[in-house]
């Protein structure tokens, strides 16, 4: 992972950066001067970010920097105070969380939000709701179409669970899974909605180094297999530096640096945000 080749980043017309291989393609996500105020506090302000169609982007920053708030803005849990979000070129201003999901954004949660009393398989099938079309009558009277759609859904759910090797637990209650498996199931559930942009909120939290390195492998695999963009919040720097094509660093609600992992590692503003300023510099 460490010797991975990072592509060069190019500026977009909106001054966002995009991967070389995604140049000329419509960015999946473009945030323009996005901001939200809670009371008088600007939790996020002037947030500009573009994500190419197959890019893995890391969103990092110290605790309380506003990373999860950005996710909540992107999924319309919060209504942005200023700025706009373009998803595949379309303005999302009037969309609700549900419509945004249909339009292609899926997410996981920092504090796991699974359907705990449902089976693992049903957790995934719920997320396929808008790709199963049978009506109420068809379902109540078990017409042939119902059976076909159910068996298709079952197969797709099993395929998706296979990404993380969770098929063996398909009938277990989601709440009874070990912590790591619950995190993985959340990713599977998000994938089941057929997103074009996957938002992962601290996917490696609570995982040991072996699990984390497996997760890195799987995230890259998901990008390659499904050809989607991934935006992830993570504190594990090995993971972020290992798999992200581009990284944005957030501090006090503002982006303080954007670029490839190498750029970020050497950026003085980032070092300052994480480690503080040197003593001599202060005096």
């Amino acid at each position: 992972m460490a010797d991975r080749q990072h592509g060069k980043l190019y500026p977009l017309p909106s001054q966002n950066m995009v991967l070389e291989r995604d140049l000329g393609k419509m960015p999946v996500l473009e945030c323009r001067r996005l901001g939200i105020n809670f009371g008088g506090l600007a939790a996020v302000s002037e947030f500009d970010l573009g994500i190419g169609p197959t890019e893995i982007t890391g969103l990092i920053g110290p605790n309380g920097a506003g990373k999860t708030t950005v996710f909540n803005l992107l999924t319309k849990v919060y209504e942005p105070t200023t700025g706009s979000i373009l998803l595949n070129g379309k303005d999302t201003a009037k969309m609700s969380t549900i419509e945004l999901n249909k339009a292609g954004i899926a997410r996981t949660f920092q504090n796991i939000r699974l359907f705990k009393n449902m089976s693992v398989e049903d957790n995934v099938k719920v997320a396929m709701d808008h790709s199963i079309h049978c009506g109420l009558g068809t379902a109540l009277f078990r017409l042939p179409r119902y059976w076909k759609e159910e068996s298709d859904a079952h197969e797709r759910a099993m395929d998706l669970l296979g990404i993380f090797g969770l098929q063996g637990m398909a009938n277990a209650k989601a709440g009874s899974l070990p912590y790591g498996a619950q995190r993985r199931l959340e990713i599977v559930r998000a994938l089941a909605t057929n997103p074009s942009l996957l938002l992962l909120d601290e996917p490696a939290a609570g995982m040991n180094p072996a699990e984390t390195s497996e997760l890195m492998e799987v995230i890259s695999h998901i990008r390659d297999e499904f050809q989607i963009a991934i935006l992830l919040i993570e504190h594990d720097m090995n993971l972020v530096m290992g798999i992200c094509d581009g990284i944005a660093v957030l501090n006090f609600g503002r982006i303080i640096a954007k670029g490839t992992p190498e750029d970020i590692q050497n950026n003085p503003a980032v070092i300052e945000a994480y480690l503080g300023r040197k003593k001599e510099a202060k005096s």
Partner: protein
Amino acid sequence: MSIKDKAASGSERLQGRIRIPTPLRYLINSCLIAGLWFALSGMAAGGIINNYWKGILITVGINIILATSLNISVGYLGQLPLGHAGFMAVGAYASAIYMKSTPAAALIKAGDRGAVLPYLITAVLISAAVAGLFGLLIGIPALRLKGDYLAIITLGFGEIIRVTITNIDSVLGFKFTYGAAGLARIPKFTTLGNCFALVVISLTLIHMLMKSRFGRAILAVRDNEIAAESVGVDTTYYKTLAFVFSAMLAGVAGCLYAGYLGSLYPSTFKFMKSIEILVMVVLGGMGSMLGSVVSATVLTVLPEMLRAFSDYRMVAYSLLLVVMMIFRPTGLMGSYDFSMSRLLEKLLNAVFRRGAAADGEAYTEEGGR
């Protein structure tokens, strides 16, 4: 272990288990229902079940429909409606007024039960439709909100219905509900047979609903509304759907009730009636259909057996609830639901023990119904 190895071992674990194919499951269940019916009708014909017990059995049936339908809202959807008796009243009055306008009474007197059937089916559909309509009217505004608004709104609705029926005895000169004096001389169209059939149909419909994509979405809304929205589940739609479905079945129960008693009084559908139904659901275990059926049966038959102590009924009720909440806070059955085919599968697997790896078993036994 790499990803692929894990995937392979996962599917191997599943293949070891014996599964009963779905058509066979349905066949087994149909046979059981038919068997139960033959036992019941045989006992009724043989005189083992006298008219007194027939009446109790019909009441049990009505209460089963009421409890299982409320269980959709309380157990599966996770909301708390307190006006179930209101929907029952609406359904009861709608079907009673319709039945009085048909020649059903004369047909029943003449003993021609077969000819009543089309009227009965229409009455059931009317009561379901009217109750469903009211459910929709209340559900749409109430369920768009998050939180406990539904409890308060339905509480109000139940009372409004009762007070309205009590005070309005005629509309535009047509005598409809006869107000507080009660609606009498309704054809007594409810029999053990059609009651049994409607219970089976209701339970089947609930089962079919809950085991489809609609049921999954409803359960998802209960478990985590924010997550459900984040995966594109239209929470308002599914909440309304479940609530209306629940109201419709309450209407059907009301229809049976009207046809069983032959007269309706608004005072029957007081707030206490709604609470009584809620108690059945809570006692049986929220989210368990079997629990609702069992507790509806017990709570109907027990007061009949304890007629001598009927003065202390409400005391016993509340004591029972307190004791339950202390010792079994999740209700009799919790969220467990019985499945004959799963039991058979378990037996078969225990007998043949094919490849059920020890670690696999712990995961597979706990799943849904």
